[in-house]
């Protein structure tokens, strides 16, 4: 049976993990490569590298890091951040990324999804959206939660899938950082609207939050989180063991 995936996400700036992390026995590790290796050995099903670099030098550093990770880590690797053109896809795919996540770049130029899917296949194109409730409606935000694009979230995601996105990452701004659980209400609407894998992001604070996510919404395929894994508040292995105990299919 296909398993539910647990995906840690690393924010990378100028070749280092942002803020550093306290992961297992690795204190204040800032090397994305070392962290990726540790997560892979610790049971992560996939990794997301999010490039928040602004400079060209930082970008070059990022692709070096990516290539080094691909030499040492053999689980699927998704890259996001700063993906605005097909050339950006090429840049990260040639350094070992398996999937590429688009967000603001696709909002500015929705045709990017279609062009990338044609060139690299839908399985390679992940549409990620930061979503927030505004006056009772779900809206897509851009520029790191700062800008309301006015796009209605569910129809935007549906459009993205129609254009060739092979996976969806739903990041709820309303639950992000609160650590009181995923945004089940929003995720339910998304899973009913699209027929591609849906990755839930934003709000995980405990093992129980993941159990609730997968038990309540069988249509969600994966859970993504960052800080709770980085600071060892939740160990991926403990999480997956508990999922297995609760009857959720998981790779152990």
């Amino acid at each position: 049976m296909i398993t539910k995936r647990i995906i840690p996400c690393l924010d990378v700036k100028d070749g280092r993990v942002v803020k550093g992390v306290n992961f297992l026995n690795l204190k204040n590790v800032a090397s994305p490569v070392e962290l990726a290796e540790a997560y892979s050995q610790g049971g992560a099903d996939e990794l997301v590298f999010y490039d928040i670099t602004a400079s060209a030098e930082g970008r070059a550093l990022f692709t070096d890091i990516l290539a080094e990770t691909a030499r040492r880590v053999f689980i699927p690797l998704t890259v996001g951040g700063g993906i605005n053109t097909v050339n950006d896809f090429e840049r990260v795919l040639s350094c070992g990324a398996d999937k590429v996540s688009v967000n603001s770049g696709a909002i500015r130029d929705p045709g990017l999804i279609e062009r990338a899917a044609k060139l690299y296949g839908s399985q390679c194109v992940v549409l990620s959206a930061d979503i927030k409730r505004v006056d009772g409606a779900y809206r897509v935000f851009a520029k790191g939660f700062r800008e309301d694009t006015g796009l209605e979230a569910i129809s935007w995601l549906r459009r993205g899938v129609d254009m060739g996105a092979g996976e969806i990452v739903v990041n709820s701004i309303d639950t992000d950082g609160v650590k009181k659980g995923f945004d089940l209400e929003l995720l339910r609407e998304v899973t009913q609207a699209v027929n591609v894998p849906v990755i839930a992001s934003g709000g995980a604070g405990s093992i129980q939050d993941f159990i609730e996510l997968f038990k309540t919404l069988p249509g969600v395929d994966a859970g993504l989180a960052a800080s709770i894994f980085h600071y060892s508040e939740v160990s991926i292995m403990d999480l997956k063991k508990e999922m297995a105990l609760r009857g959720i299919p998981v790779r152990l």
Partner: protein
Amino acid sequence: MIAIVDYGVGNLFSLECSFQAIGQRAVVTNDPEVIRAADRLVLPGVGAFGDAAEKLKKTGLGETVKREAAGGKPLLGICLGMQLLFENSFEFGFHAGLGLLKGSVKPISEVIPAFLKIPQIGWNALSILRPSPLFRFIRNGDYVYFVHSYHAAGCEDSLLATCDYGAPLTAAVQKANVFGCQFHPEKSGSVGLSILRAFCGEEEAC
């Protein structure tokens, strides 16, 4: 030396890295001489069957691979590369494959329940149906990473393993020196590396 056949589809960086990680020299090549000189061949591939089959034909690399496999050289097809080993495919029309294995490539939608998502993306367990040198370092039920919308059908004489996605889907095949994995061993963690090591004829698992 292992030759990863580069006929112009997909990115081969990770695959090359995975062989390096198990201490094997692998070269990504489109040179028939290098392919002839190699001890083992890997036929990779992502994307559409028709396009890939056309490229194999146009470059002449399909014929090279067939000739080497007929001569007994171990060949491993991965994902679309595995599907290309079969006689034909029904993906967007009808296309001829290399015909090294008996069977057709068909949409998984024909066999799985309608509520399941297509493509199958993620980790699924292998049901190993018979012993094979390819699986000598792994166990029945080990997890590997899949991304696919099509699978091989009518391939009973080479079927090695299936995975359960609402229905049994073809996960791995073997006939003599011709091997195929629908999943990505280069993305399947230590289990995947153990499979590659077995293909390389290594004595120990990783």
